[in-house]
């Protein structure tokens, strides 16, 4: 490349700084600032409904020794895990079809359609599920025609997972489709030529090649499910509450912001650990066989 250098400058480069610094300042003030303050807040005290800056472990003690906190913690973890597994498994055949079985035009349209719900109101979609899944709702009305039901689907874990999937399924299908569409077709063809059965090719060739994308998709699914309060509240009945609901309850009633901060910090630590584990798995070199 014989491209010319930018006009030479000495010392401080105002041009570069103009583009580089706005986001640093913005994120420091309104992203890092709030997060760091929230961690600090978990050590504050609440006296007479007013928050006092302090460095005490009272909130941590209070929350971490309570049974209901751990009930919520393990419920949230379990729900998010189930959601991740179910969503990934249900999304895979569709992503596979979109990546390998349809024309590029169909694929483009399908991905476009799947991106739309991600940017439309999740809240309204969950409310819609509430009506659809109700005792006298659409699903039970349909099932009654073939002599089944009615089934209770609201205020169950099933309801929660359906809600989570409303949020995560389109995204996971999109990410999985990208992952699958990007793998080298020649390797798949080679596997077939060497007498590999289609199922075995999926398991031994396609999935390992697309591993990074598949794991990242699952990770996003986990993060979204873990942090969502709408589905467990409206479709799951919130008994016991999940951690996000616990944050809301603690914040909105009783002004116990520091305790809510404890819950939030625990959630962050959990998510960061899981993200690192997932990324380590995603980028691990395959052991030679």
């Amino acid at each position, binding site marked *: 490349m014989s*491209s*010319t250098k*930018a*006009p030479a400058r000495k010392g401080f480069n105002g041009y*570069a700084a103009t*583009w*580089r610094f*706005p*986001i*640093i300042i*913005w*994120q420091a003030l*309104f*992203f890092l*600032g*709030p*997060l760091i*303050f*929230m961690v600090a807040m978990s050590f504050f005290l609440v006296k007479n409904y007013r928050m006092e800056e302090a460095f005490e472990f009272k909130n941590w003690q209070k929350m971490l020794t309570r049974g209901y906190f751990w009930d919520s913690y393990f419920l949230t973890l379990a729900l998010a895990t189930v959601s991740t597994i179910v969503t990934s498994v*249900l*999304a895979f*055949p*569709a992503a596979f*079809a979109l990546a390998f079985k349809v024309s590029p035009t169909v694929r483009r349209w399908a991905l*476009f359609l*799947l991106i*739309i*719900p991600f*940017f*439309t*109101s*999740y*809240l*309204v*979609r*969950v*409310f*819609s*599920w509430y*009506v*659809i899944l109700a005792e*006298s*709702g659409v699903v039970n009305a349909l099932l009654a025609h073939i002599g089944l039901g009615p089934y209770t689907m609201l205020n169950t874990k099933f309801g929660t997972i359906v809600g989570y*999937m*409303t949020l995560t*399924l389109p995204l996971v*299908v999109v990410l999985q489709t990208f992952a699958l569409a990007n793998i080298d077709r020649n390797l798949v063809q080679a596997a077939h030529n060497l007498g590999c059965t*289609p199922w075995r090719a999926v398991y031994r060739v396609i999935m390992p090649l697309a591993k990074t994308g598949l794991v990242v998709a699952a990770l996003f699914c986990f*993060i979204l499910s873990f*942090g969502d309060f709408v589905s467990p509240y*409206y479709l799951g009945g919130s008994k016991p509450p999940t951690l996000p609901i616990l*944050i*809301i309850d603690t*914040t909105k009633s009783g002004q116990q*912001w520091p305790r*809510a901060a404890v819950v*939030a910090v625990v959630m*962050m630590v959990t*998510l960061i650990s899981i*993200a690192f584990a997932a990324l380590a798995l995603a980028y691990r070199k395959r052991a030679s066989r």
Partner: protein
Amino acid sequence: MNGGFLLSWALRGYTLLLFVFVFAPILFSVVFSFNSARFPTIPLESFTLHWYQTIWADPDVWTAVRNSVIVSVCTAVIATVLGFCTAYTDYRYNFRFKSAYMALVLLPPTIPLIIMALAMLAWFSKIGASGQLWSVIIAHSVLTAPFAMAIVRLRLNQMDKDLESAAWNLGASEWRAMREVIIPFCKPSIISALFLTAAVSFDEFAIAWFVSGLNKTVPVLILEIVQGNIDPQVNAIGTFVFLVSMTLVIIAQVFFTLRQSKAFS
């Protein structure tokens, strides 16, 4: 080969079912918004505009719409400016700690909204800025700037690296090259970013709920109605919200694909 053929069609049928699952709630929300039943199910009752009339006559809804429009327009502008600056920095420069810089920029959407909401609420009351519309605007800009950044960055990927240097060679200053080469080239993606960030902001409820105080936006209003009881008004508001956000997303997509077909050759 017959088995493969069958499997292939089974996969397509399955994919179709998955799309039904994804779009069923949107579809039912629209259908029920025109249905007279208080607790909607099938078979449908009679057609009505009652729910639309109710929300049309509700001043709270109008205030919320006004708030939402202000918030999403301001958010879109701030987030897109920030996103553009960052995308250009990433495209043009290499510097120490660049990966930390990029992480700082791209991290916000990976943090659960409820955590951001609590952190923002606490921070804004600490600096004496809670309960304002512009606290929502600031929080939403943090959340959406990475989307804007990604869209503009993808566009810059398609630009010939030599285009900018050619402008310099011909005597343009860096500022002039920015004005006459980079920005025109990025224009479709900038428009796309504006619409997409507006759409995200228009639908966001967790942070808005925590920091908006009495200045409710539309999603916060929906959240509060839903907390009460089953009220088909939600379907009417919801249909309106879907319409707005889908329009925004589709416009964003159109400009985004414009980018691909009209890339400089």
